[in-house]
């Protein structure tokens, strides 16, 4: 728990950032969600599929800085690429480098 100089707890309910899941091979990416204003750190697992990456990325953008688009699918591509990744592809097979930027967009 983080306390202030008077010993009071100050972080309360905002303690949501936790990058260490059990048995996780941390693989950080940089995410650029279409409609967002900032690149964000996206910690994922090398065993995650692109669909799981999209779901994790959405938590950091959709409904926070980007409006939801119900019924649409989130696609992922490497920054600058034309074609998106197959949503079943695993991160470890994508050739992405740690902290490389992926683009996410609704389709």
């Amino acid at each position, binding site marked *: 728990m983080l306390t202030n100089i008077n010993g009071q707890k100050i*972080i309360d309910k*905002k303690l949501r950032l936790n990058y260490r899941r059990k048995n996780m091979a941390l693989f950080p990416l*940089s995410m650029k969600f279409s409609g967002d204003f*900032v*690149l*964000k750190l996206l910690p994922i697992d090398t065993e995650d599929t692109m669909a799981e990456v999209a779901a994790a990325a959405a938590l950091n953008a959709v409904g926070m800085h980007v409006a939801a688009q119900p019924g649409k699918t989130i696609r992922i591509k490497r920054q600058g690429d034309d074609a998106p990744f197959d949503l079943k592809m695993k991160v470890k097979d994508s050739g992405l*480098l740690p*902290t490389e930027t992926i683009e996410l967009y609704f389709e």
Partner: protein
Amino acid sequence: MALLNRSDWYDIARDTEWTPSYISKEELFPSGHSGGDGIPDEMWCTYDEPYKITYSEYVRTQREKDAGAYSVKAALERTDMYNRADPGWISVLKEHYGAVPVVEYAAGLQESRYVRWGQAPGMRNMGTFGMLDEIRHAQAQLYFAHEYVNKDRQFDWAHQAMKTNNWGVLAARHFFDDMLMSRDAISTSIMANFAFETAFTNLQFIGLTADAVNAGDHTFAKLIQSIQSDEARHAQLGTPLVTMLLESGQKAKAQRLIDIALWRSWRLFGVLTGLPMDYYVPLENRERSFKEFMEEWVIDQFARSLDDLGLEKPWYWDILLRDLSEHHHGQQLGTWSWRPTLWWSPAAGVSPDERDWLEEKYPGWNDTFGRCWDVLTENLVNDNEDKTIPGTLPIICNVSNLPIVGTPNTHLHDYSLEFNGRLYHFGSEVDRWIFQQDPDRYSAHKNLIDRFLSGEIEPMDLGGVLAYMGIGVLSDGGGDAHKYQWAENYRQKAAA
């Protein structure tokens, strides 16, 4: 005994020089400290500072300036400005005092290096006064901020900020260490005095003075006006050096130093000055927009200084012109969203009237940055405060050390570079270009995200990051300056 007129002795005194005999000139003025390689020996005596002053004149003038600022402060203490001020204005003060006073001490060290390593007597002379200027600025601003510590502990950051690893401090320290503390005297003076002080201190110290007067904070207005009167004088230290580089055939070197300093200053001042001017200062007190101030002080006036000297506009001029309407709006969204990481409480500045003003000053704002604010506002209207604070960290530029931001749906890009097996990220092609000018200078530095991912910050959660940055240690972090009062308009509209 009658005193001689200044004009009768000044030139002899300021030109006093000696020829070293016990050590070589290279030992007296080593290249790494002094700089000026390629400038012929005889050219140093042509250094002619545009502003001439004697020590007694300097002391008299500075004493009057101090008396002016301190007497206004004393006279106005009873007016209770602090308790009557808009919370947005208090945030301006907190951000300024955390970012500026201790950097002034660093600037004192910068000027002191001219006193020792400057090869022109006039430069050493002016450096002495510049050093005393900066010490005065540090002491005055620490003293003025200290008055507020008993009202709000966040003012303690005035003294403490630069000793922390707060992300904003990392950005400021990286910039000022690069420009003020780690280059030879000639390069430092061209970057800091000519490019940074001539172009940018006007923004913070004159532009913000107008807003301070409008906001009724005459104490702060008088203080920063007093400081700028010194800046305007010692900023002139660098101009003769630019001329000497040009005359010795080193235009490309001068241009490169200026191009680096101007961009780095611009990006940092987007946060330091851009946010207060366009978001924190109460709407009715805003003199002009940040962009309008930039257009006057930098785009017009500084560009004219470059032209007058025979230099070119930086190669990225068109990028800079575009950035005037973009960068600080992204930083405002970022700083407000990650407000628990700040030592001040940012004003959102997006009530309906404020959004109208932003759209007027920055056409297209509503359709770009405004869209992100729409989502944040909707969350507040629906009592989802949690969904207005990100659960992750932003990616940070390896040169500016600021979050990499851009214009939604228009221009947000990671300008990356793989160097010696490490992937670096930059907020613009200019930041990447700066890195490429001297990779040895920049490549070893770790920004906040690098430190986080390499395990230097424990525990690896938001609490760990905040504690690493001094939040909760020196004071609590920031919240919304107006406690979301601005969202009430939208709540009522939604309920209607």
